[in-house]
């Protein structure tokens, strides 16, 4: 049905032509310090499935947010249904028929499938009461049309997540959606569930809806796309037609950063005779993960968002319930099934979201730095003088910029907040330090300081695990990178072989 980009334009004189639903022209969006979306052009035809791929942080979510009215572009226009808009609001997007299907399902669990589908536009009888029989009939027709096999009277709360997603799609169709945006719709789905969903998406497109499909999974994209657009660092790299592009080409277009962006670290002698071994970790979405870190080594943990990296580190730290998994540290097995045991064993976890889970924002630098040491050391009383002295020492050692140790941490910059988190773990004498996205939301200058600190820690003989979505950072910093995908470790790459292509190929399931 779709042949080439130019053919669309040619065909637009033809009455049977595929109609342009959406046309984004030179849209940009900046956040402090980043150009998240840079003069991107994008269009979507009726009946088309247009896939969007890109690494973490390539600008996919910014794009979705602009289309769903959650973000206002700084410049550029969006032409929808023949009219130009410089920005949308959620209500306007809805009115224009733009429906975003999220995985966190926005349905009422205590209502039936039929009631959910027609929520807000229920048919009524002459008395103004809800007309159940029409409701049921219309829902049935709608579901049959989409080839969804569900009983319309079942409560939504009793459905599985993929079934709920089907209901959500049906609901969007009932609201006469013209443009569908699916963002990572298949995360944690089994392969048969994925196929089901892809069929449904094809069915929806066949009804003339334009679908924007965002995914990390290349097989899915290759099985469903009409066109595919690649984003990188907020820029559009290319748009390809079906069958005109290979996996390798897509991956090479997703990567390809300028080498000058890479930080150059100082290398450290690794002590291979000492190690911490994590063996057979399972629990939640994580399946049978094993790997080791040597003394003085920085090991990277890569993978797309949703690949289970954060779950894994919480599991290692005893913060999530594990089904299995043992830790052998320098030859001895240690039992870790709670954070306090992990801390006793010398582990620390610098969480991904330091404001939500790492810091107590309204407490002082002093209290934040001392809390782990204080909670896990012997004795009942606080030695205030020692506490103040130690906190002061750490502040100087890693150069935290704060007017005083009594400053509330919410007033510090992102980089200094991260250093406070680091200081609290160092004060607690950690040997094995897990950094989850250590430089997210931190300006470039502070990033380098954090990198230097990490190298210094490696020099001091610590064991370091670094989870990151920032590919240049992983490649610059790590002695070795393990890659996760769908809860498993799917690859391990040594420093000399490390490249963006390799990491990405493992993360999105390409063939190496």
């Amino acid at each position, binding site marked *: 049905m779709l042949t080439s980009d130019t053919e669309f334009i040619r065909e637009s004189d033809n009455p049977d032509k595929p109609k342009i639903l959406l046309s984004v022209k030179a849209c940009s969006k900046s956040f402090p310090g980043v150009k998240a979306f840079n003069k991107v052009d994008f269009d979507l035809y009726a009946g088309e499935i247009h896939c969007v791929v890109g690494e973490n942080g390539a600008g996919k979510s910014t794009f979705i947010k602009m289309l769903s009215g959650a973000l206002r572009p700084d410049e550029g226009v969006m032409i929808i249904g023949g009219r130009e808009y410089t920005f949308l609001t959620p209500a306007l997007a809805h009115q224009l028929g733009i429906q975003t299907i999220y995985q966190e399902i926005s349905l009422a669990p205590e209502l039936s499938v039929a009631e959910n589908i027609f929520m807000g536009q229920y048919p009524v009888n002459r008395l103004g009461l809800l007309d159940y029989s029409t409701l049921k009939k219309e829902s049935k027709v709608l579901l049959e049309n989409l080839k969804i096999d569900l009983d319309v009277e079942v409560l939504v709360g009793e459905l599985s997540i993929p079934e709920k997603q089907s209901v959500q799609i049906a609901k969007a169709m009932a609201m006469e959606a013209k443009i569908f945006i699916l963002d990572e719709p298949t995360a944690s789905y089994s392969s048969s569930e994925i196929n089901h969903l892809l069929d449904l998406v094809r069915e929806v497109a066949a009804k003339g809806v334009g679908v924007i499909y965002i995914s990390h999974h290349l097989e899915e994209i290759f099985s469903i796309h009409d066109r595919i657009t690649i984003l990188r660092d907020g820029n559009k790299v290319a748009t390809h037609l079906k069958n005109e592009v290979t996996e390798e080409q897509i991956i090479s277009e997703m990567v390809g950063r300028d080498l000058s962006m890479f930080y150059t670290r100082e290398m450290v002698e690794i002590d291979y005779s000492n190690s911490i071994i994590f063996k057979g970790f399972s629990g939640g979405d994580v399946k049978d993960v094993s790997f080791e870190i040597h003394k003085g080594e920085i090991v990277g943990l890569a993978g797309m968002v949703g690949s289970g990296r954060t779950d894994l580190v919480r599991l290692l*730290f005893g913060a999530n319930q594990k089904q299995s998994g043992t830790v052998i540290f320098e030859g001895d097995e240690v039992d870790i099934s709670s954070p306090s045991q992990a801390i006793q064993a010398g582990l620390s976890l610098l969480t991904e979201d330091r404001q*939500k889970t790492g*810091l*107590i924002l*309204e*407490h002082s630098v002093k209290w934040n730095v001392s*809390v782990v040491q204080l909670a896990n050391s012997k004795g009942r009383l606080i030695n205030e003088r020692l506490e103040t002295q130690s906190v002061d020492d750490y502040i100087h050692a890693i150069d935290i910029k704060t007017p005083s140790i009594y400053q509330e941490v919410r007033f510090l910059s992102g980089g200094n907040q991260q250093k406070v988190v680091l200081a609290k773990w160092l004060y607690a004498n950690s040997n094995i330090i897990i950094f989850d996205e250590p430089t997210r939301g931190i300006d470039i200058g502070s990033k380098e300081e954090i990198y230097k600190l990490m190298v210094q820690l490696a020099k001091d003989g610590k064991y370091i695990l670094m989870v990151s979505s920032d590919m240049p950072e992983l490649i610059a910093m790590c002695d070795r990178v393990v890659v996760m995908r769908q809860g498993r470790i799917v690859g391990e790459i040594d420093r000399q072989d490390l490249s963006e292509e390799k990491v990405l190929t493992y993360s999105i399931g390409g063939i190496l």
Partner: protein
Amino acid sequence: MSENNNNTKKISSWVNKSNRSVYYLLGILIIAVVIMSFLDPNFLTQRNIFNVLNQQSTLGIVTMGVAMAMIAGCIDLTVGNVLACAAGVAAIAISHWGLSDGWVILLACLVGLVAGVFNGIIVTKTKIDSFIATLGLMTVYQGLALIISGGNNIYLQGKFGWFGTYKVGGIVPLPVVYFVVITIVVYFVMRYVKYGRKLYAIGGNPEAAFLAGISLDVHKIIAYSVSGLLAGFTSLIVISRIGQSQPAMGVSYPLESIAAAVIGGVALGGGKGTIPGVFLGVILLGLIRNSLNIMRVPSFYQYVMLGSIIIIAVTLSNIGSIRKSGNPS
């Protein structure tokens, strides 16, 4: 940057955030006292000062426990009815069983402690919001207080009067002594004992506290236990003063203790507040009540005014915390 910064550090340590609200409160208190002493020459007499302190001692002791729970992010609404239960048991022990005063004191404290432990377990294990959980438990204790006393007032027949009315040196009422001593102990715990600091951490950010290796449940249960224990202890002062126990006594305590704590700078969501602040909050609330009495505001109107003041205080504190949580998102 060490030598010349030492002075600044010392100053900022004194005027750090939590202290500051204590100073504000102290300022308000002084202004109120000055105004009142102009309005009524009897206000600043030794007698009236001890009168206010004595009146506030029961609420004050209860509030210390409630404030500890609040700092850990927990609300305890049961204190009033736990107090009534302990009062019933103590009154029966005095009048029916004829236990000696020492045993009576122990027994009332035990009743409060057991109730507190139970509250803590229910709140932490059911994972119900603590406000709702203790609202339910409050009714349970209300029923228990009625069951214990058979629905009747129990008279102490002149016994046990010393506990709540004796004046040390003929001037300082014993309840004021209890109040001050307990305040100092709780202050010490919250400031110099690791347990106290951990409560602040739990209330400030439970997830961060958990990841710092702090066992949330154990600490919260202890906070509730202290709250129950202090309510049990307070029941002794109340029955001693009025010479009887009443199954419906203590109903105003939950609201007033939370209000006093909030006025004293404790955040409703937990994690913040100092014990000196709570102490001043209790005193301020008493001062307002005393002033209304001196100005001969009829008691029905006093309720309306007190309630309004409480709502205003809590709202102001809430606005503060909302503004604070309004981080750039």
